[in-house]
Each structure stands twice: as C-alpha cells, then as structure tokens.
C-alpha cells in the first residue's frame, strides 16, 4: 500500500527536532519506531506534510542511573531492550514483563518506549482501511461526526492500548518533555487527556525524551496480565499491571493500572487501603480489591471481543495479579 506524500526530516539533535516540531507540528507527525504510525499512514488515518524522524538523534536511547539513584530510560530505547536488559529485569520485573509481551519479537526490535507511551488510541471503527471506514461510515475520531461505539455521544471512546504505560504508572514513573522553552518533568498520568480523539497532553513543540523510574520503586514485585486474541503480534484488549511490596512494618505498597479498556491508562485509586482490609482476613479476601479494579475499567465495543467478556477478563486478571504478588 503506498504511503501519502510527505517531507521527511531527520534531525541529529533533539533541539533541532523540537524546533522543527514546533514549526511543523500542526501539519506533521513524529516518527519513532513506526510500528503503529506506518500502518496508520497506509490506512489514511493521517496525511502529514512533514514527518520528523527521531531515529537519527544521538543520545535518545539507553538505560542509565541518575545521581539520586533513579533510573532514566531514553524515549528511543527499543522495547526489546526493556524486555531483555538483565538489570532492568531484576529491579523492575513489571516493566520487563510488560515489554516482553508487546507485539512480536521483530516488532519489539523496531518499536520504542516513547512510541509506545505516545501510542494513538485504538478502535474497531478507526484502525481500518479507508475503504472499510468509508463503507461502514466514518467515525468522529477520523473523517466523520458520529461515534459508532456510543452513538449520540460527542465523545471518542477509542481505547488507549499501550502495554508499557500501565506498568510505568504502577511504578510511579515520570516523563520528560523537551520543548521550545526547555525540558519539564511530569508524572506519567498527566501525559494522558482521557479523550480518545486527542489522547496526549503535549504542548506545542514538545517531544517525550526520557522516562524516569524512581529508585523507591526498584525491587517491587510485579505482575503483568494481558488478554489478546493471539499471544503474539496483537495489541491488548484488556491488560493490567500491578507493582507491590510488603513493607517491613506489615503494610503494603501497591499500585495497579489498567490499559486497553479506557481512552487513557488508568491508575486505580484506593487500592492500598482496600488491600490493607483484605489482608486483615485469613485467608486474604480479595473480593473488594477486584471490585475496585472492575469499577475503574470502562470496556466498550471498541473491539471485536465483546465488552462484557473484557470486563470478566479484567476481574480475573486483578485476582491473578494480586495472588501472584501476595504469594
């Protein structure tokens, strides 16, 4: 399938990319690994005049330690490296597990962490060829004015479907945005708008450049639970990341986040309190925690798999993850 015509820019410096992006962003797209963008261009989901490739920029890859012990990961680091790096796997097994379950081996070597975090939202009515979308009726995320998932509504419910995002939310990660006025750090959760048609909150000229994993999250137990049709290649249809540590004081530090169910990855609020009550019983009663997770999930008919099935799956995932990390 031919790609639409565009001008390709291959900046060598991040500052140069930021300047180009600030100038051309309205009619442009950023290219990282391309594993989502290139198929989307073929489907006519975007017709950018300018493509800014981040692959030639020096210093945007790799895993390192900051002076305060935090871990820093360059946005252009390949998913494969996150899955295979032995140190990262030991310190942050949750992130390694989520990365190892992304797409397929060859796609993990092409796809990047930054690209995954900035993934476009996905929907049955959106990620289709132009002919398919034209035949079934365009949707409000692209070319149309109605949402086929929630007809009558004015909101886009396309599901945010990256696997690294829930893992990094559960690990309390931050992201660095390089922009025309310099760089700023923000909690990962603040990157996401919750709107399916404009999923990212990026200012003009801003490019996700690094991810910070706090030293305090190192060594937490983790479980990544992913449901998809095939156990390779596919994007998730319901997935959940849990990071958990039983403290010496007897308490529990735990964060759980969902993906592929809502228009943004969701950090489930109130889990620690819920778990403290659950662990007071012997054996622990996880029912309330599973229900808490269930209430945060909003699966809609954005995929060929019925939403009630995905709801059943996320409850099962919550129980399995909690049992695995509490064992």
């Amino acid at each position, binding site marked *: 399938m031919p790609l639409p015509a565009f001008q390709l820019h291959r900046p060598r410096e991040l500052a140069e990319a930021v300047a180009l992006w600030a100038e051309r962003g309205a009619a442009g797209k950023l290219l990282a690994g391309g594993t989502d963008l290139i198929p989307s261009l073929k489907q006519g989901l975007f017709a950018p005049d300018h493509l800014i490739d981040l692959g030639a920029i020096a210093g945007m890859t790799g895993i390192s330690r900051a002076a305060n012990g935090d871990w820093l990961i360059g946005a252009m680091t390949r998913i494969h490296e996150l899955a295979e790096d032995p140190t990262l796997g030991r310190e942050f097994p949750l992130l390694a597990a989520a990365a190892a379950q992304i797409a397929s081996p060859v796609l993990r070597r*092409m796809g990047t962490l930054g690209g995954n975090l900035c993934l476009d939202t996905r929907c049955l009515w959106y990620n289709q060829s132009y002919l398919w979308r034209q035949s079934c009726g365009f949707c409000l995320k692209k070319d149309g004015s109605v949402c086929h998932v929630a007809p009558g509504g004015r909101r886009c419910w396309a599901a945010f479907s990256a696997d690294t995002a829930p893992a990094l939310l559960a690990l309390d990660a931050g992201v660095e945005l390089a922009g025309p006025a310099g760089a700023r750090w923000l909690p990962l959760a603040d990157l996401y708008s919750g709107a399916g048609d404009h999923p990212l909150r990026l200012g003009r000229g801003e490019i996700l450049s690094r991810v910070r994993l706090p030293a305090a999250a190192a060594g937490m137990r983790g479980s990544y639970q992913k449901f998809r049709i095939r156990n390779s290649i596919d994007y998730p249809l319901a997935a959940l990341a849990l990071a958990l540590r039983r403290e010496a004081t007897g308490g529990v530090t735990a964060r759980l986040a969902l993906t592929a169910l809502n228009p943004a990855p969701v950090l489930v609020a109130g889990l620690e309190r819920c778990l403290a009550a659950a662990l007071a019983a012997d054996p622990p009663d996880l029912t309330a925690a599973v229900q808490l997770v269930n209430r945060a999930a909003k699966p809609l008919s954005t995929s060929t798999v019925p939403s009630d099935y995905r709801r059943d799956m996320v409850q099962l995932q919550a129980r399995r993850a909690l049992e695995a990390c509490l064992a």
Partner: protein
Amino acid sequence: MTTAFTVNGQPRRLELDPATLLLEVLREHLRLTGTKCGCDDSSCGACTVLVNGQPALACTLLAAVCDGARITTIEGIAADGRLTALQRAFGRMGGAQCGFCTPGMVMAAKALLDDNPDPSDGEIQAALSGNICRCTGYVQILASVRAALAEAAGAAAAGAAQPDAAAAGGRRGFGPAPPRQATKPPAAHG
C-alpha cells in the same frame, strides 16, 4: 532524497521519494522479490529482513531511515552459492509449503540462531511468533529449525574432514527426511 545502504553486501545508492518503504526498494527497485509482501500492515512477518543483523519488517520501515545500514535479505544468506543449513532444512522437512511465509520464517530463524546457537524449543517458538503461516504448517517449520540445528551439531561433530556431510541427507522438495545416505549434495541454487 539520496539514501545509501548495503544490500547483501553490495553498496546501493538510491534517489528515493521519502515515502518509499524498504520493501518497495527491495522488490521494485532492486528486483529482490524473495522478500514478500504479506499483510502490508506489520502483522505477518513475511517481509522480515535483517537490518544491521536485527530482524525488521521491510513493509514498516521507510527506506530513508535505513540510510547507512547493512541490509540482508533471503537472497543474501547463502554462502558461495550454497544454501544455508536452515534453508536446506526448510526444503527437506516440508517447512516450506506454499512458500510465501518462508523467506520471513527463515530470516526470523536466522536472527535467532545468529544470536543463540543452541535455542530451546520454547525459544524457537517465541522467535517465530511474529511470523504467520497461512498453510498453518507450524509443526514442520519448527521441525525445520530443529533439523538445521541438528545438522549444524552433526557437522561440528564430523569435523573439518567431511565438510559436506551436513548436506548428505538433503534433497529438494517436500516431505520428511529420507534416511541419510552418502550421496552427493544437491545442486546448489540461488
């Protein structure tokens, strides 16, 4: 824009529209049609090639971002006109059925064996999990990779005195391997 890379060891310098995919360059410009266009949306693995030794999907890579890279396609892995053990095993064990996914399967398997010369069955399955065979002949494909490994191990054991021993059981066509005979190796092709 001008893009320069090597394909199977040969330097290539091309004037390309920036929207040209690597797959298009290989198949249309260089007439290396061994690399197949399957799904064209990065979900089948038929167009797997090696870029700087790493597997990549040629249908999902802009040729221009491969500037300076070393690209290897299915046409470029035979040495001195002789198919590799992996290629011979795919022929011998019925790993190639309709043949359309085969170049991608062989390249994905080669990437694995280059990295890990002694993979477990699980590692072979995992490494090929991004490559789809619509004949669904996965059993023979996995058996082909195992046979190539066994052949390599056998050749290593046989030592330098019998450099062609590895090919002795080889034959063209499909079906299971015949009993090993000390016949001449099949004519080299490719």
